[in-house]
């Protein structure tokens, strides 16, 4: 059982009693392979008999539509957008993640407060204010950070979805040179992630490695926290390899 811990103060209306589940967060920039790894982890955990819920940004019942509508207009100031994301985050934490943890599930969360903090800081929102706003967030049982360099990231992104408007900082960087803005934006963002990694005790995994290697590293990194969740599952996942 896990006693819930919060970064700052305990939020009102949230039970403080211990929960049997685990909160596992995967952080990293777009294109580093978070969703692939989460899909693999989910399958592996379910094969071990452990129930999983998955969640990520803009998936809340409350605020996902509102954020989509708001982003379409491009007229949003950074604080409003951040508070919208905070609402989305909080709705998922209280109404999806925490009930799952109390039910004994593993919550696999695709980006937590850290990506929100990193993106906001780049846009000039004070870091201290962001950390205050998310002060009531539950401390995860493990935070993985998939690290990568811009040079390693570029071919992956160009070869798949292409350069995204927001992921290139086009909303606040000047000029029409998307390639230049993308590299500038991602370099600053990655530096911010590394700073957060040190401050918030991330497990850093080299995200530039092949999928199977990253997956094995994630499995190994989860062994100790899922050990004991099911009596028949000693953490032997590291030997099973990725289901490819």
């Amino acid at each position, binding site marked *: 059982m896990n006693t819930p811990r919060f970064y700052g103060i305990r*939020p009102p209306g949230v039970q403080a009693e211990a929960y049997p589940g685990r909160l596992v967060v995967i952080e990293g920039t777009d294109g580093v392979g978070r969703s692939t790894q989460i899909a693999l982890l989910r399958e592996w955990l379910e094969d071990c008999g452990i129930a999983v819920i998955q969640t990520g940004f803009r998936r809340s*019942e*409350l605020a996902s539509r509102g954020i989509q509508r708001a982003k379409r207009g491009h*007229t949003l100031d950074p604080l*409003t957008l951040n508070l*919208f994301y905070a609402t989305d985050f909080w709705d998922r934490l*209280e109404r999806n993640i925490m009930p799952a943890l109390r039910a004994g599930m593993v919550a696999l969360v695709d980006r937590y407060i850290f990506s929100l903090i990193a993106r906001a800081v780049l846009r000039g929102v004070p870091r201290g204010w962001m950390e205050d706003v998310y002060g009531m967030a539950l401390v995860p049982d493990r935070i993985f950070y998939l690290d990568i360099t811009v040079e390693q990231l570029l071919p992956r992104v160009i070869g798949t979805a292409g350069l995204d408007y927001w992921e290139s900082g086009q909303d606040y960087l000047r000029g029409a040179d998307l390639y230049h803005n993308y590299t500038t934006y991602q370099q600053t963002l990655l530096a911010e992630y590394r700073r957060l990694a040190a401050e918030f005790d991330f497990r850093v995994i080299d995200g530039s490695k092949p999928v199977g290697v990253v997956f094995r590293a994630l499995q190994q990194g989860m062994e100790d926290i899922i050990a004991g969740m099911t009596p028949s599952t000693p953490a032997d996942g590291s030997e099973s390899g990725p289901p490819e």
Partner: protein
Amino acid sequence: MTTLQPNSGPGRLFIVEGIDGSGKSTQLDLLHKWLISEGYLVVFTEWNSSPIVKTTTRRGKQRRMLTPVSFSLIHAADFASRLYMQVIPALQAGAIVLADRYVFTAFARDGVRGLDRSWLRKLYAFAIQPTVAFYFDVPLDEAIKRILEGRPALKYYEAGLDLGLSRNPGESFRLFQGLIKNEYDHLAEEYGMVRIDATLPLVVQQQQVRQIVRPYLQGLPPMESTGLQDALKEHRLTGRYLEGKRPDEEDEA
């Protein structure tokens, strides 16, 4: 006395606060009309009205999805949106901004819902200090009577039913408003709000409000006349096809 961020523009910001049924909106409306008739450029903004955010808030309320924290955050998003899109540009342009409810509504309501008071102050640290903040102080019984007389049914969050104070909406509303009034009484002290006795005749309250506002209007440029009234008079037209323009909002200076 605690203050918020300084107003860096030449405009003025007047805000009204008070529990439901204190009559603050009526007084602000009268102030609004007077300022327009005096020829000033006036911008009005009210709580929970951002076109970007309010549909989400409504969705959360209708489906009763809001918890104390998400209730607080979505209202902060609404406030931020109006502050950056409406209030700050208007203050920079030298306008008078009138706000029906301000951060103190969030401090009072969210505080009653159990949110940490210093957390709430940090959340709203970006808010601009009003030129004058009016607090319409009314005894609880009087306010409850005014509200319940004219209203068929209280809404879930309006009545504070999410707090579990009572299952009876009327009783819950009374307890909730009592707690909010207690918060306001402290906030009025802490932030140096100007207290108006909301049991006085409306016309007397309005006289007091105007008397307090008047000295702050010095140095504000009256709105430039567009010459519409002159044109109508000169050409003997009534302006009946002018859309969205009430004649009394033009050129009275």
